[in-house]
């Protein structure tokens, strides 16, 4: 190890055994040896003078003296931190904690912003009635990001303040210096130190009781091997590939299906609705019902309850539908088709709908529905609960257009009239003679399947509720024509009050 130094033989004896128990084992007793540089190129100028010590205490003492001599560019090197050396070397307390503090604050701010935007702005889910942004549930993330930012900054800040990583130093040319990470203690004085004078400094160090002294020369810069340089360059280049790929793909459109390495659930071996298939002659993926089949629970054999017809009427209704236009020919629009022929024309209101108008003499074709055997009575027991239910349902489903009193002045109608919506047909009043006479089964059919512009509500309102609505409908009709004697005596006053 010491073959190319002019080391005194005795020095190696001191070197062995880090005689920590005996601070005087090395140094002063024997005249310290003096080494020359191990540098590859001694012609280079001196960069450092290096003094080796056997114990931490010896280094501490020496460092103190060097500092007191006024050297500023010097350093002590040891395998482990030596307590108290900061003070004797005049090392100022590091600014690192401030870096950490600021980073911690930034972490909290980042977390707050992240939680705020994800929870409140971008994905505002309302969950168990909690506010969209709340401190308690954001606290864990705030805390974690504070720690994360602070910790990363602490490490990076420590390295930066220490000017690390620094892979080449003249110190590394010294073979002896390799033991600084093992059991030896070194003092280095930088040649750039204003106090540095080659002979004087060397003598000074000799006087400090070092085991060994040597000079490290500036190194000739050796460039990195070409393989490394190429690898680094290629690596950097390749780092741009994913980024540019993503940017490219995100800014362009493609008609090609996505490449699937693993089949996701989106590509299941099944046909979706409204798509084509070559499997069947009609080319449709969706299959029609098999003729004559009835789904479970869909039999609905009770004609009166489900269709408002006398028993057997269902067969006739099938015949009537035939007369409706089939696909291919456009369905006649309401405007041309004189409303429901069953209702006399004077009851329908055109778009302007300002009250009853003189009958329009249009010869209406007979309505096939007229011929059907509609029932006249409710197919279920009429109770006050049914009435209450009917009122509630009516107010939900019907009143928006027909109005609470059934005269065709619901909120939507009023608004449509105000806006002058040309396609809006004002609902007929319930209190016309025609509607008062119409069989209850026929009215049931109208609610279920719609009439004129009114859509069918069969899918939304169950049969029982439809009957309940009709019961209330009848009550509304009756209310307009009821004599005072029909009102229970205790309600009369109340009714009188309501009259303006």
């Amino acid at each position, binding site marked *: 190890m010491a073959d190319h130094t002019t080391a005194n033989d005795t020095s190696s004896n001191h070197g062995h055994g880090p005689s920590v128990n005996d601070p005087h*084992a090395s140094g002063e007793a024997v005249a310290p040896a003096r080494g020359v540089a191990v540098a590859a190129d001694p012609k280079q100028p001196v960069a450092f003078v290096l003094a080796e010590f056997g114990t931490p205490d010896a280094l501490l003492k020496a460092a103190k003296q060097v500092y007191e001599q006024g050297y500023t560019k010097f350093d002590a090197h040891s395998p482990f931190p030596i307590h108290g050396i900061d003070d004797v070397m005049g090392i100022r307390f590091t600014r690192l904690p401030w870096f950490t503090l600021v980073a911690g604050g930034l972490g909290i701010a980042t977390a707050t912003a992240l939680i705020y935007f994800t929870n409140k702005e971008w994905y505002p889910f309302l969950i168990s009635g909690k506010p969209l942004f709340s401190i308690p549930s954001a606290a864990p*993330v705030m805390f974690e990001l504070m720690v994360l930012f602070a910790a990363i900054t602490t490490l990076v800040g420590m390295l930066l303040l220490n000017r690390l990583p620094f892979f080449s130093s003249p110190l590394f040319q010294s073979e002896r210096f390799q033991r600084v990470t093992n059991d030896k203690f070194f003092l280095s004085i930088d040649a750039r130190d204003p106090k540095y004078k080659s002979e004087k400094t060397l003598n000074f160090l000799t006087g400090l009781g070092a085991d060994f002294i040597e000079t490290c020369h500036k190194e000739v810069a050796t460039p990195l091997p070409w393989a490394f340089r190429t690898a680094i360059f290629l690596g950097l280049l390749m780092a741009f590939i994913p980024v540019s790929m993503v940017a490219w793909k995100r800014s362009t459109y493609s008609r090609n299906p996505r490449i699937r*390495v693993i089949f996701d659930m989106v590509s299941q071996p099944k046909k979706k609705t409204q798509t084509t298939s070559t499997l069947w002659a009609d080319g449709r993926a969706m299959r029609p019902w098999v003729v004559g089949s009835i789904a479970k629970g869909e039999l609905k054999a009770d004609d009166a309850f489900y269709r408002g017809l006398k028993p057997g009427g269902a067969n006739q209704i099938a015949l009537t539908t035939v007369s409706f236009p089939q696909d291919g020919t456009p369905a006649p629009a309401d405007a041309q088709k004189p409303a429901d022929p069953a209702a006399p024309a004077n009851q329908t209101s055109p778009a302007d709908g300002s009250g009853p108008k003189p009958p329009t003499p249009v010869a209406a074709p007979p309505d096939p529905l007229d011929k059907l055997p509609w029932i006249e009575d409710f197919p279920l027991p009429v109770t006050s609960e049914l009435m209450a239910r009917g009122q509630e349902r009516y107010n939900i489903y019907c009143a928006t257009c027909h109005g609470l009193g059934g005269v065709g002045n619901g909120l939507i109608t009023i608004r449509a009239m105000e806006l002058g919506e040309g396609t809006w047909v004002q609902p007929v009043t319930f209190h016309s003679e025609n509607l008062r006479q119409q069989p209850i089964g026929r009215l049931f059919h109208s609610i279920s399947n719609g009439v004129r512009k009114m859509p069918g509500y069969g899918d939304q309102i169950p049969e029982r509720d439809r009957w309940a609505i009709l019961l209330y409908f009848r009550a509304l009709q009756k209310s307009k024509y009821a004599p005072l004697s029909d009102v229970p005596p205790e309600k009369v006053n109340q009714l009188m009050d309501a009259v303006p």
Partner: protein
Amino acid sequence: MAAISPTMLDVDIDNTIETPGRRSDLVTRNSSFAEITDSVCYAAESPHPPAAWYIAFAISTSLTMMLGLMVTYLLFTGIGVWGNNSPVFWAWDIVNFVFWVGIGHAGTLISAILFLFRQNWRTSINRAAEAMTIFAVVCAGMFPTIHVGRIWVIYYLIPYGPNQHAIWPQFRSPLLWDVFAVSTYATVSLLFWYMGMIPDLATFRDRATNKWKHMAYGFFSLGWTGSARHWHRYERAYLLLAALATPLVLSVHTVVSFDFATSQVPGWHTTIFPPYFVAGAIFGGFGMVVTLLVPARALFGLEHLITLRHMENMNKVILATGTIVGYAYAMEFFIAWYGGNPYEQFAFLNRMFGPYAWAYWTMIACNVLSPQVFWFKKCRTSPLIMWIVSIFVNIGMWFERFVIVVISLSRDYLPSSWGHYTPTWVDICTLIGSFGLFTTLFLLFCRFLPIVAMAEVKGVVHQQNHLKAHHGEEHSH
């Protein structure tokens, strides 16, 4: 050289005995700095590690390969290959996740909390414990990741602007906290571990015998020269990281406990969960450290650095945290009765006498009863007994999570939706495989990295010598 003293002899003294007022040596055999370097580097520098290392490595890599197969099978087939099903949607994956995250806690406790408490005995074991932490977190992180099923679209979850992927990830889930807690924990543990290793990596660099090793260790030691100016900032940074890691380690298992305790599942929602989970995690983690270090110190001849006293201290921590866990079990139990909520009461009776009663009693036996042998010094200082108990602790802590997750989920409020969970062979092989991964990483660490923090131990030895010098001075006075 130093004066001859009985401790100079190359025999391990019993440092588990301490006379009050006179601190026992933390490093026996009166090691010199060079000797410490040599014995720690031996594991990495010897051309052939011990035969036991090869055997262990062969087994653990096979298990890791099995894990790889299991994960591949899972990803290509779907989560259905596991036993998770209604009502136990969280099953072994979350059990294993919590188990492994908990294991990690001991490392940070040793490196950060004991550091703040000036417990110098940590220096011999902190490196291995920190390494263990990172490997455990690797295993832990794997489970929730593969549980998402289609990990190739996991980036859907990244919020970069509103609704980029036309799906609505739920950022208000408590599981979000886990993502931040576990990833922060993994990162900070890694930084802490790496930073602690820089001086030791420099030792490896300076002793490297071939160019590649020199370059690799040289790169990672960042040009460290042991400069006093560097040490100054390094120590401050170390202290800061310790101060950050201490609340962090508490927060991680606290957040994990929030996953359960913010819900309303009987047996999950209880306010003591955060401290109880943390204590349990430290308990389990120390169990794992003992499990690993008992063979490792024997295998690599480090008995004079990782001494019986270190092991004894860890066993004391196991006893203390095990008892805290017992306290939490008792409190949960008492409050379940005191609270008067029949569902909560049922949850606890079901644990004890329900279909999974065997799991509950295994947990109690392993976690509460088995560490009680550590009241006796003989048990605390016997490597064999402590190793066996530490295995029990590992088993017990796994079962604790099983009890919490599976028993509570399988029977909650509505008896009509009760179910019974049984793991599939994929579940079992994945768990075993995760142990393989963990052991493989640890064995590689033992072979290629400094398993004892040399610089720190040297500092302790230096101070030990000073104390001795001080005592000598005082007695001669």
